[in-house]
């Protein structure tokens, strides 16, 4: 038992120093004003100044749209993948792009969406003319959705893969058509996969500050961008921490909304 205590201590030290202490510090820092005094001014200005609230709303709204786009694209992909031969190999190929640095993927889109890039070339070829694609909200959302795609496919794939095939057959035998079978059988049974997918896509989408800088052209301000700006540009750590606490609260809320899975299982 003593020996166990010995090797466990490094882990406990990590828990204290790098998990609990930083959370406590960001909470504490959020009450520090710009002059170093203890105050609730940061929270006051956050809730009073409309631009902060609008930014938060926008951030959540865009993250929601990104999540929706990825979900709509991922569900059929994941579903069809489970029906293929060598599905584990295909799944590996879906995961592979996540091992490529996110900045390189963002950088690729700087070229793809540029004035003379392939997207504009195709638009021109179709007779739609070239457009300013880079530094728009749409390009930000598309690139974010592209990056998050594998993270959504994986949990849905696992949920569909665990689905008992005979339930689908029973539903068809009982006279349900394909849509009814999907809506009443397949969808509810894979809901847990969707929920964990939403979780792993929505939360990071709130904080993709490098994308807003490189692709969004600073027009889309997300919670993450605001935190980065307060910490590293204007050096107002108090306000940055306050927004951080708001982001943590949003995150907890989302996990709460999508986290019924575990509780239901335990019962």
């Amino acid at each position, binding site marked *: 038992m003593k020996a166990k205590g010995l090797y466990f201590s490094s882990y406990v030290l990590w828990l204290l120093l790098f998990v609990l202490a930083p959370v406590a510090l960001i909470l504490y820092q959020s009450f520090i004003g710009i002059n170093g005094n203890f105050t609730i001014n940061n929270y006051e200005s956050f809730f009073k100044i409309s631009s902060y609230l609008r930014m938060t709303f926008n951030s959540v709204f865009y993250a929601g749209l990104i999540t929706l786009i990825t979900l709509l694209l991922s569900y059929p992909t994941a579903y069809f993948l489970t029906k293929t031969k060598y599905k584990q190999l295909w799944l590996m190929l879906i995961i592979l*792009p996540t091992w490529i640095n996110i900045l390189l993927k963002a950088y690729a889109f*700087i070229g793809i969406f540029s004035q*003379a890039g392939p997207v504009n070339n195709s638009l021109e070829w179709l007779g739609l003319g070239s457009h300013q694609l880079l530094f728009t909200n749409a390009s930000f959302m598309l690139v974010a959705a592209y990056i998050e795609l594998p993270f959504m496919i994986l949990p849905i794939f696992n949920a569909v893969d665990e689905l008992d095939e005979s339930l689908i057959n029973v539903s068809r035998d009982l006279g349900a058509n394909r849509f009814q079978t999907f809506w009443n059988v397949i969808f509810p049974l894979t809901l847990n996969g969707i929920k964990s997918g939403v979780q792993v896509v929505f939360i990071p989408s709130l904080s993709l500050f490098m994308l807003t800088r490189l692709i969004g052209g600073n027009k889309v301000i997300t919670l993450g961008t605001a935190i980065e700006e307060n910490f590293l540009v204007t050096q107002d750590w108090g306000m940055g921490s306050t927004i951080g606490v708001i982001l943590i609260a949003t995150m907890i809320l989302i996990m709460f909304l999508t986290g019924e899975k575990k509780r239901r299982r335990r019962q």
Partner: protein
Amino acid sequence: MNTAKRHYGRNLYLIIAFLVLYLPIFYLIFYSFNSSGGMNHFTHFTWVYYQEIWADQRLILITVQTFFLAFLSSLLATIIGTSGALGIYSIKNPQVRTLILGLNNILLVSPDVIIGSSFLIFFTVLGINLGFTSVLLSHIAFSIPIVVLMVLPKLQEMNPSFINVAQDLGANQWQILKGVILPIITPGMIAGYFMAFTYSLDDFAVTFFVTGNGFETLSVEIYSRARQGISLEINALSALMFLFSLILVIGYYFISKDSPKDKRKDQKVQQNLIR
């Protein structure tokens, strides 16, 4: 007829999905051979940007630093994470266990920006200089939970009577650990090490927050170059990094293939994992 048609549609959808996933990456690599210097209008094939990387001493230094950091941080994270998993395994009280596992997962679900900013406050309060030390500590810190999640299932699959037998045969704690437990959990530790390694290589946001002026990783360097616009040296670099990821994935695939029984569980972990 009908099913054949359906298969056709399904395959078409999947082909498009894979194209969407891979075209941007191949686009990037394709233009790294373009002599005209931009990411459109391919003129001639050239190796010039690869030669430029080779001649760019600063970039090579940053690459070496990045890999050294990934190597060291994942090694230390594997050691601490494995001892954490052993500790959690030995906790009998289910509530305490759930609590510690919950705390373990905080860093896995937190957005990078939160990890980065709170670590920045932490290092400043402690008076630790921003640079290699702070980046190394951060990378160790955010890699530990994934190692725990990779090792713990291996421990739970282990037959507890192995330990009882070893005890009956007179083995002490250290001998049990070395002779019985470690061989069983080694695949989990290797998987954890791999994951930690890629986490470290991939990380941008946390490093960006806690690095000072003295230390840079590839991600930070790519970010600052990309903000200035297109330079095909980055394309060439991304081609090399893609090759490297491919090798890592193939290596990881063969390691995880060794234990086909655990495929389901590995996938469960992977779900938590990929972030």
